[in-house]
C-alpha cells in the first residue's frame, strides 16, 4: 500500500515536473524578441518557429510512426495555399481574426492527408516512402497546371492586414506576427506532445517497432498509421497557414521535393528519437542556413555532408547526442568528460575548419572570375593564388586531425569510466 502511494506521488510529481519545460518555453518565446530586437532577428525567429512546427509534424510520422515521407511539403503547402485564398476572400477574411486563420490551413492539410492516407498508409517502409514521393511530385507538378488554385509559376499572394483586427492588433509589424506564430508554436507543440501520450500515439510507437505484434493486440496497424498521418497533416497545414501569414505569398517552391527533402534533413539532424529533437533540428538548421549562406556559396554542400555524417555516425541526431550523456550525469560523473572533450573536440574543430578553408580556397581558385585572386576567409583577406595560405590551411587540417586522433582513445576511456558506476563503498 505504501508502495502504491509512493509511486502515485512520484507520478504526481512528474506531472508538475513535466509542466516546467512548457512554462520555460513560453517565457523564452515571450522574452526572445526583447533580447534580439533587430528586424532581421525576428524574421529568422519567425522562420524558425514555422520550421519547428513543420518538423514536429513530420516527426509524428518519421520518429513516432516509422513512416518515411518524401513528399510532406505538400500538406504544409496546400494548407498555406488555402490560407492565402482565404486572405483573398475579402468579406469572409474581414470577419475572422487572423489568429484563427492557421486552423483553416490545418483543416486543409488534414483533408488532403485523409485522402492520401486512405491508400498510402496500408504499408509502412518503402511502399509508403514511394507513394509519398509520387504524390508529392504529382501535386508539385500540378501547381503549374491547376493555375486557379496554385497560381502557376508566380504563385499566389495575399494581405494579412485585411483580417478582422484581434484586440486592435492589425499585424502590420513583424513583431506582432512573431507573437502570433509563437502562440501557435506553443499550442501545436503541446498538442503534438499530448498526442504522443494518447492511446493512438502510443500504438503508433508500437506499430513502428513491430506492426505484426500490434495487430495481435487488437490494433490494425494500418488505421494506427492513418490516424498519425492525418494528425501530422493537420499540424503541417498549421505550419503552412503560419507561413502564409508570415510571407503572404506561396509558390511552387512550398510544394516541391526540395522542401520535402529539407524537412527530412531538419528532422533527422535534430534527432527522430526524442520529442524535442526536431525542435533542436529546426533551430540549428535555420541558424546554419542563415549564417552559413551569408558566408559561403557552398553552404548546401556543408549541410549535405553534415547530413550524411549524421546518418552514418549519429543516427540519433542532436537529441540523441545530448541524451547519450544522461547516464553519465545521473552517475554524477558528467564533469569528468569535460577535459577529454576539450582535448579532442577542439583539434577536431580545427581540422574541420581547416578542411572547410581548403574547400573554399579550391572553390575560389577554380570558379572565381579571372583576375579576382583575393578572398576573405575567417575575417582574413589573402590571395588564393599564393602558396602560404595553402600551407597554413593544410597544416591546420593535418595538425587538428592528428591531435584529435591521438586524444580520441583517452576520450573513449573517459567515456567508459563516466558511464560505469563507481564501486560501492562498504
Amino acid at each position, binding site marked *: 500500500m505504501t508502495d502504491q502511494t509512493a509511486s502515485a506521488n512520484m507520478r504526481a510529481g512528474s506531472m508538475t515536473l513535466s509542466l516546467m519545460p512548457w512554462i520555460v518555453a513560453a517565457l523564452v518565446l515571450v522574452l526572445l524578441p526583447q533580447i534580439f530586437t533587430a528586424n532581421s532577428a525576428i524574421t529568422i525567429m519567425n522562420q524558425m518557429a514555422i520550421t519547428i512546427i513543420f518538423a514536429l509534424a513530420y516527426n509524428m510520422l518519421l520518429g513516432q510512426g516509422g513512416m518515411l515521407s518524401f513528399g510532406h511539403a505538400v500538406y504544409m503547402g496546400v494548407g498555406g495555399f488555402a490560407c492565402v485564398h482565404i486572405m483573398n476572400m475579402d468579406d469572409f477574411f474581414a470577419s475572422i481574426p487572423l489568429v484563427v486563420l492557421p486552423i483553416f490551413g490545418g483543416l486543409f492539410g488534414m483533408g488532403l492527408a485523409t485522402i492520401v492516407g486512405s491508400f498510402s498508409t496500408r*504499408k509502412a517502409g518503402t511502399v509508403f516512402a514511394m507513394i509519398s514521393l509520387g*504524390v508529392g511530385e504529382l501535386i508539385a507538378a500540378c501547381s503549374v497546371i491547376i493555375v486557379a488554385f496554385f497560381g502557376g509559376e508566380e504563385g499566389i499572394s495575399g494581405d494579412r492586414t485585411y483580417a478582422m483586427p484581434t484586440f486592435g492588433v492589425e499585424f502590420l509589424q513583424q513583431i506582432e506576427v512573431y507573437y502570433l506564430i509563437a502562440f501557435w508554436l506553443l499550442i501545436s507543440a503541446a498538442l503534438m506532445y499530448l498526442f504522443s501520450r494518447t492511446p493512438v500515439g502510443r500504438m503508433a510507437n508500437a506499430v513502428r517497432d513491430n506492426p505484426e505484434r500490434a495487430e495481435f493486440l487488437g490494433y490494425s496497424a494500418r488505421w494506427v498509421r492513418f490516424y498519425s498521418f492525418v494528425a501530422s497533416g493537420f499540424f503541417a497545414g498549421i505550419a503552412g497557414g503560419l507561413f502564409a501569414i508570415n510571407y503572404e505569398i506561396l509558390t511552387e517552391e512550398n510544394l516541391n521535393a526540395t522542401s520535402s527533402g529539407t524537412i527530412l534533413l531538419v528532422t533527422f539532424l535534430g534527432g527522430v528519437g526524442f520529442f524535442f529533437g526536431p525542435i533542436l533540428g529546426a533551430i540549428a538548421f535555420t541558424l546554419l542556413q542563415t549564417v552559413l549562406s551569408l558566408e559561403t556559396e557552398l553552404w548546401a554542400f556543408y549541410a549535405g555532408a553534415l547530413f550524411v555524417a549524421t546518418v552514418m555516425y549519429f543516427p540519433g541526431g542532436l537529441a540523441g547526442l545530448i541524451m547519450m550523456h544522461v547516464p553519465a550525469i545521473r552517475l554524477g560523473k558528467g564533469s569528468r568528460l569535460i577535459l577529454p572533450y576539450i582535448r579532442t573536440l577542439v583539434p577536431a574543430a580545427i581540422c574541420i575548419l581547416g578542411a572547410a578553408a581548403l574547400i573554399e580556397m579550391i572553390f575560389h581558385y577554380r570558379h572565381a572570375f579571372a583576375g579576382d585572386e583575393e578572398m576573405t576567409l575567417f575575417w582574413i583577406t589573402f590571395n588564393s593564388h599564393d602558396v602560404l595560405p595553402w600551407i597554413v590551411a593544410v597544416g591546420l587540417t593535418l595538425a587538428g586531425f592528428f591531435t584529435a586522433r591521438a586524444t580520441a582513445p583517452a576520450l573513449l576511456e573517459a567515456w567508459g569510466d563516466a558511464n560505469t558506476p563507481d564501486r560501492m563503498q562498504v
Partner: protein
Amino acid sequence: MDLVLVNLIDGLVTGLLLFMLSAGLTLIFSMMGVLNFAHASFYMLGAYFAYQISLAFGFWMGLLIAPIMVGLLGAGVERYGLRRVHQYGHVPELIFTFGLALLIEEVVQFIWGKNQMAYDIPEVLQFTAFSIAGNSIPAYKIFMIFISIAIFIGLLYVLTRTRIGMIIQAALSYPRTVEALGHNVPLIFMGVFGVGTALAGVAGVIAGPVLGTFPGMAFVLGSIVFVTIVIGGLGSLWGALVASLLIGWLTTFSKAYNLRMEDFLTFIGFSRPDPIWDSAWRDLWTITSPQVADILPYILMILILIFRPYGLFGKRDV
C-alpha cells in the same frame, strides 16, 4: 503513320535509357532491400566523368572508363557507407542514399560549376542514319538503342548462364538461403552495387550529350526511375524493362500528340463554359497532353500501388 514510327523510335530511346537505370536499381533493391535514392546521381557522375575523360582522350575512352570509375565509386559507397548504415534498418538506409544524392549534386556543382558542360556527340556519329517522311533520325539515337540492347543481352547472359548470375538470381528470391549456403553475401552485395551503379554510369555517358550534362540531370531522371521499378514490380528485371518502355512511349506520345481535355469533355457531352477564363474549371478545360506528359508516370504509379501493390511483374511485396 510515319510520325508514329518516329515517335516509336524516340520512345524506345527514352525507354531503354530508363531501363539501364532501372535494371541496376532493381537488381540492387532485390538483393539488398535498399532503394538507392542516389542511383540517378551515379548516372550524372557517369556523364561528368565521361565529359572530363573525353576532353583528354575522346568520347570512346570515356564510354569505356567512366562506367568503371562510377562502378568502383559505387562499390566504395556500399562498402564504407551503406554497410555501416545497414545495421540501423531500412529507413535509415533510404535516408542515407537520399543524403548521398544531395551530397553528390553539391560535389558536382563544386567541381564543375552550375552550368551545362559542352559534352557532345562524337563526330563520327553526327550524321543522319535515315529519315522517315522528312523526319531525320540521327545516328546517335540508333547507337543508343544498340548500346542499351547490347547491355541488356549481356546482363541477361550473365544472369542466366553464369554461376555468379545463378547466385544473384537465387538471392533475388531467397536472400537468406543464399547466405546460409555459405556465399560471401557482403561481397556479392558490393559487386551488385558496383555493377548496378556502373550501368547507371553507362546510361549517363550516352545520355549526357543528348539530354545535357548539368547538375540537375540526376534530379530530372531520378524520381522517374523509382516510378519505373515500382510500376514494373520491385525485383523484376522484365518488369523494369516493360515499365521503362511503357513510360518511354507514354511520355513521348503524349508530348507528340496534342490531345486536349477540351475535346474529350465535349466528346462526353459537357459544354464549354464561356468565357473560359472566368470558369472555375478553366484549368481542367485547358489541360493538354504535353502539359501532363511528365506527371503521367506518377499517376500511373499511384494507381498501380493502389490496385496492384506488387507492380506489373513483381512477386514480392515491396
